[in-house]
């Protein structure tokens, strides 16, 4: 049911078709694809997609791992900490992006420029001066709780006896982390990173709300470019070709994700 539209996308990608021009539907072979190769916008969009995805996943996995380890150790109010921590993931992405943009980062009325004023960063217009940094920051804020939840579940399934044994053997905290904790939660980190990247590759909401792909094309990723081409330019064929490229990129990531998913299911099954 959901594969048929994609087949149609491939079909349309071989045609030149402007939705606003009557009778402009005609076969154009690989024109849309050859245009993709020469087009500056698509290269920028691919670059931005990869940059955004890699940095969001890297930061959120590292911070998520740290928070998960904190929540797995002896601390006060674990339950409440976890509850508050997952809020950014549950908040509607469009709402979260607007709150960041207008009430936290706005150079005139925002809280962050005010808090940073003692450091001489008072009037930094984050959204316009550092658009990609802003989008990455908001997405990291949103995806860290996701990573934290998955890694925490991994930590909690750890065998405590092994940790005790390591302590008895005189391993220090860093050794225990590197030799025991990290290998044990590795499958969970991988799963989180891969599932997360499948979502982050599709980032659209926060870009639409924060920067609208700009300034210029600085934060235009593939989904946003497709939106612009299809619904601002009404070039159905060209948009379809972009869709096909997006699918190819995602498929590469998804293949790894599914392999990880199946291997975890098999480990579970063996127990």
């Amino acid at each position, binding site marked *: 049911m959901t594969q048929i539209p994609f087949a149609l996308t491939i079909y349309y990608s071989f045609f030149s078709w402007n939705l606003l021009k009557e009778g402009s539907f005609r076969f154009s072979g690989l024109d849309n694809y050859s245009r993709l190769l020469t087009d500056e916008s698509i290269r920028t969009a691919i670059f931005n997609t990869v940059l955004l995805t890699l940095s969001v996943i890297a930061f959120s996995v590292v911070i998520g791992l740290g928070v998960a380890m904190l929540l797995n150790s002896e601390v006060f109010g674990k339950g409440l900490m976890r509850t508050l921590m997952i809020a950014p993931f549950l908040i509607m992405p469009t709402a979260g992006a607007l709150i960041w943009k207008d009430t936290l980062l706005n150079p005139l009325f925002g809280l962050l420029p005010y808090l940073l004023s003692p450091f001489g960063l008072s009037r930094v217009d984050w959204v316009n001066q550092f658009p990609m940094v802003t989008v990455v920051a908001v997405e990291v804020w949103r995806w860290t709780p996701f990573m934290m939840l998955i890694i925490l579940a991994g930590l909690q399934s750890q065998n405590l006896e092994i940790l005790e044994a390591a302590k008895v053997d005189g391993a220090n905290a860093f050794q225990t982390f590197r030799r025991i904790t990290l290998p044990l939660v590795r499958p969970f980190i991988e*799963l989180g990173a891969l599932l997360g990247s499948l979502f982050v590759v599709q980032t659209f909401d926060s870009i639409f709300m924060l920067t609208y792909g700009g300034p210029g094309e600085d934060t235009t990723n593939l989904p946003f470019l497709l939106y612009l081409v299809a619904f601002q330019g009404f070039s159905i064929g060209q948009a379809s070709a972009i869709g096909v490229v997006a*699918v190819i990129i995602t498929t590469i990531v*998804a293949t790894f994700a599914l392999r990880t998913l199946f291997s975890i299911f098999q480990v579970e099954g063996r127990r």
Partner: protein
Amino acid sequence: MIASSVDGRRAVISKVVWSVVGWLVVFIFFFPVLWMWLESLKTEPQAASSPPTILFAPTLAEFQEVLSGDFPPFFINSAIASIGSTLLVLILALPAAYALSIRPVKRTRDVLFFFISTRFLPFAASLVPLYLLARDLHLLDNIFALVLIYTTINLPLGVWLLRSFLLEIPNDLFEAARVDGAGFFRELTRIVVPLIAPGIAATSLICLIFSWNEFFYAVNFTSSVAATAPIFLVGFISGRGLFYAKLAAAATLASLPVLLAGWIAQKQLIRGLTMGAVK
């Protein structure tokens, strides 16, 4: 004795230190949400002041403003789209998951793989054809189109999730029921549904989260009549520093259902997000 009391004190100190660090990190992550709530309780001049207002007398005026204005239809559309699609997913996914676990059909693994691969297809892959289809069926700006789209988006997830719960039911239960002469329908209503109630909860939660917060299709397929809550927020993009309190109130209301559902069903959340792989 002395050694153990030193150990004990060290444990307490380390607990306090890590608690402080932990709460600091959690505070930073939760702060934007807290700030959204605070802004929503301010008056407009307080919300757009420089320096920002920290101390103020809370007011619900902006909530009243939002609720008495044009927001409710958007909220209702969101409810129809997400609840409708969640129900459809449950109705369709339960038999499918049953066929793939309790009474496995041929080539189960391939079917599973096919199912889940559709969830991983980017929205970009199907946007154009679905848009043209909706246009030709006169379903643009019709909430029914969103119900159908969200159903297809969430269906693979539902099948996987429910299957992971079904696999946990011991086979003996079914054997016993069949020996007692229970038919398929009885088996389903008396054994399957009660035992996988947590699974149904997890599936509903995940479907609700994804469909309630969905924006890409909503912004392209609706304009006014069928527009959902996130579309309402788009109207604030151009509002240059004039409606922060109203924006915060609307954002709070729009986020509330998923936030509450996610908080209540935290245990189901992790399992749902990983499609049943992580418990």
